């Protein structure tokens, strides 16, 4: 078995993914079948955000990946230019 920080990080990731999955499942799948007067609707944003937030997060992720690749490529170019 892995030790120390590896275990903590790994189990943390599992916990985060389970939390996100249960909240999102309740939001998308369960909430439409619950009466609009029930108190549980207070814990969830309006339904449109269920698509808007993952979409925005996905675009942000793509942005960061693109910036990272650009940075690495520029660094590589500078290193080869110095070596010439």
């Amino acid at each position, binding site marked *: 078995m892995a030790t120390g920080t590896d275990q903590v990080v790994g189990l943390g990731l599992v916990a985060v993914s389970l939390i996100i999955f249960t909240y999102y499942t309740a939001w998308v799948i369960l909430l*439409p079948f619950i009466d609009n007067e029930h108190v549980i609707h207070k814990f969830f944003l309006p339904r449109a955000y269920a698509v808007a937030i993952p979409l925005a997060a996905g675009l942000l992720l793509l942005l960061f990946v693109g910036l990272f690749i650009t940075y690495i490529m520029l660094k590589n170019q500078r290193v080869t230019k110095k070596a010439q």
Partner: protein
Amino acid sequence: MTKLAQWLWALALLGSAWAALTMGALGLDLPSPCREVLWPLPAYLLVSAGCYALGTVGYRVATFHDCEDAARELQSQIQEARADLARRGLRF
């Protein structure tokens, strides 16, 4: 058929089925809660796939079998090799 073609075919099929159902093109009168569940379905499947991937990675990291002895042995061998090569004139 290649795997890519299979995946694209399946995606096109499921995507067109979802589009037809959400826009009422089939003329079915679905009850309101079912429609409410249907239209965010692609986003939901993507998020669940992402959660599954994240959870699997985390689980495999946490249960990875470390070999402490082999790691220590490898480190000492690396030190030995560096000393040997430095002696023979290779500069790091």
